[in-house]
């Protein structure tokens, strides 16, 4: 029994990993004041490019890099249109999402339903032998380990470094940031690109890891939207965004277990259960306190409450 709980926890960590990676990327992008709404398409495109490249070169490393590059390219297009030419971020993001999705399905057709390389699981010597934690924490592929390392790194970058401070400043008040001698457009571009790269890598984590292979549907569909919601849910804080990803992954994993216990419940119902739950939480976090709420809930929700970067999604042209 103990063994299977460790496996269960390990599964949650693995399936949350791409959400963590994409979520941290989007958090950094949005902290700089840009919304990359193309995330869902970018992840799918990354999944396709990652799998196809790995298949062609027989190297997962090349696949992951290519997936990151595809995400970078999409972000760069968004940056060119929205930052340089002041196109509306939301509209361009939407169109790019649809474009990337269809492009992934079209270009990925030759690679559908074939077996290809996968990221290998690396068991950390000795540590993976520990009873419960070993199976949960030390039996993953390299990118899952990196996703865990990324959480404190992103947090430290945001709150403990100079460049993180300037990043937050650019998303709060670009006008003031410019007055203090920073190139707001350049800062935004850099973090948009970084976010795009991580989203592409997250795509490869699906097609080379937890949902191996390519197909239509691939299985990563909709995850980009979840990530966008998680960023809001996590209050633009990398640690909380990641926590949200783990909660979401556990809900999904739990739905699998519940399905085995109550066979009568349709599978689709349990599959979508986490989504309304997320919406409900968002509503609860953002509505002001209500008299009918128990006090403990109010206090808990106050903790989750966060304000978006003040200049999020707003165009800023340096005149």
């Amino acid at each position: 029994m103990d063994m299977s709980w460790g496996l269960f926890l390990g599964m949650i960590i693995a399936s949350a990993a791409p959400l963590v990676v994409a979520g941290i990327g989007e958090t950094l992008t949005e902290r700089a004041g840009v919304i990359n709404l193309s995330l869902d398409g970018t992840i799918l495109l990354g999944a396709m490019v990652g799998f196809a490249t790995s298949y062609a070169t027989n190297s997962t490393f090349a696949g992951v890099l290519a997936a990151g590059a595809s995400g970078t390219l999409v972000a760069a297009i968004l940056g060119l249109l929205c930052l340089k030419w002041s196109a509306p971020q939301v509209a361009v993001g939407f169109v790019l999402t649809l474009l990337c999705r269809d492009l992934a399905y079209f270009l990925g057709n030759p690679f559908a339903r074939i077996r290809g390389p996968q990221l290998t699981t690396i068991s950390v010597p000795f540590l993976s032998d520990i009873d419960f934690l070993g199976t949960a924490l030390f039996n993953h592929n390299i990118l899952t380990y990196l996703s865990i390392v990324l959480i404190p790194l992103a947090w430290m970058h945001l709150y403990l470094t100079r460049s993180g401070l300037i990043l937050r400043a650019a998303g709060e008040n670009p006008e003031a940031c410019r007055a203090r001698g920073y190139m707001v457009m350049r800062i935004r571009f850099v973090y948009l690109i970084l976010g795009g790269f991580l989203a592409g890598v997250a795509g490869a984590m699906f097609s080379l890891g937890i949902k191996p292979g390519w197909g239509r549907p691939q299985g990563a569909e909709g995850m980009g939207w979840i990530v966008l919601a998680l960023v809001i849910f996590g209050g633009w804080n990398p640690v909380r965004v990641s926590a949200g990803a783990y909660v979401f992954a556990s809900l999904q994993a739990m739905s699998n277990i519940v399905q085995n216990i109550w066979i009568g419940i349709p599978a689709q119902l349990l599959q979508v259960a986490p989504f309304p739950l997320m919406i409900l939480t968002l509503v609860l976090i953002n509505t002001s306190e209500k008299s009918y709420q128990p006090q403990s809930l109010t206090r808990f929700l106050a903790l989750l409450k966060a304000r978006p970067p003040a200049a999020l999604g707003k165009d800023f042209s340096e005149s």
Partner: protein
Amino acid sequence: MNVILRNIHKFYGPVHANRGISVTFREGTIHGILGENGAGKSTLMKILAGYTPRSDGQILINGAPVDYSSPGEALKYGIGMLYQDPLDFPALTAIESFTIGLPETPICLPSKHFVKLFEELTRRFHFSIRPEIPVEYLTVGERQQLEIMRLVAAGAQFIILDEPTTGISIRQKEILFDALRQLASSGRTIVLVSHKLEDVVNLCSEVYILRQGKCVGHVAAPFSKAELLEYMFGQIPPPVSRCILEKGATVLWMDRVSASWKKTTMIRCSFRVRQGEIVGVAGLEGSGQETFLRVAAGIATPHEGDLYLDREKVTGRKRSYFKNRGIYFVPNDRLAEGLFPDLSLMDHYAIAFGGSSWLIPWKTIEELARERMETFSIKGQVVSKAAGLSGGNQQRLLLSLLPANPRLLLLEDPTRGLDVESATWIWKYLQNLAQKGTAIVFSSRDLDEVFAVSHRITAFFEGRIALDAEVNTTTVDEVQKTIAGLFRE
């Protein structure tokens, strides 16, 4: 640092905001730039600070012509500016906002060195800001202090302050002026931009006066107020005088009302206003007058106490009920709360007077729009957007959207940012309404304005009504001290 501006021109589209201004700023001196709203002061200073590019002209620093195109570059030359609305980061802490943009910031934060520097500067200027407090909890005056500290730390040798005395208490003003004198005596050049005569007279040793985009005078201390006024206006405008009050029945009565709106609160305020009465509300920003006006208008709901309209209890009624009873509110932020920036003037009239017909009677509306624009002397086209109007025209547009004789008119800073002519026009119109029986309650940051037109003055301090007196039983000095909290029962 000596700075010369030579023949500066600035065009904003068709508007010629600066028309060949030449001025000289000398090291270690506090200079004043005086002029009424719209004279071109802010434009000139934004050019000097690198915030806006100039259309023509030259800037010389210590005799050598320089060229820069951003505030960051200007700061490298040692020129820093404190903007009218502080350009800082409300969501960050004071020390973070202070650190951003300073040279030689270490890669890892928070840095002990900067905290030490921060505390050193607060002590030096007798400020009292704690480094870890979020900027959004600071008052306007403290945010200015923070900016001054930052500019000094960034090595600014030339500091421009744009209207720094608006919205701060007298105590803060004293601290600010002391800090500026200290900076000047240490060899820095200070430029104070203001439309307030007394600030300039108290602080500066020489003054340039701007009028309609031109520099019309250069005077050194000691100043004669009459001379400065003549330069500012050409001729001294006749002051608006108080109209005669015929007290009627009570329109609105607040009985120990507590309420909050956004971040401001009012605590157990009792207040009454009669027909034809003009009541001026004084108070520093955030002292509760913002909530007070919105409670009276039915926008904010009291959580304690009651509200009576013509003796009828109206606590908790919706805004539409108040509006049907003839209560109107003109907010301070015209574009954000009062007008629809992207709609045309005709759209505004259609919304206000369009009635309930399914199709908009555009023909009638256009006639009505033209007629109203004529009466209210609004300069613009019926199809021009509200955002494109000047402040004075926007304010007149807001007033023209009100029905002919409201019961109670609540105005927040009705002449904010207006030139003297527009302000005079507004007050003539409002006084005319009062004579016809409208009760008027207005708040203003300008105590001189409050004293010029009000019959009664209500002063707020920390959410409470600290003074409520007929105008001839109190003095400017008393009200000033009250809103700063120097009188406490």
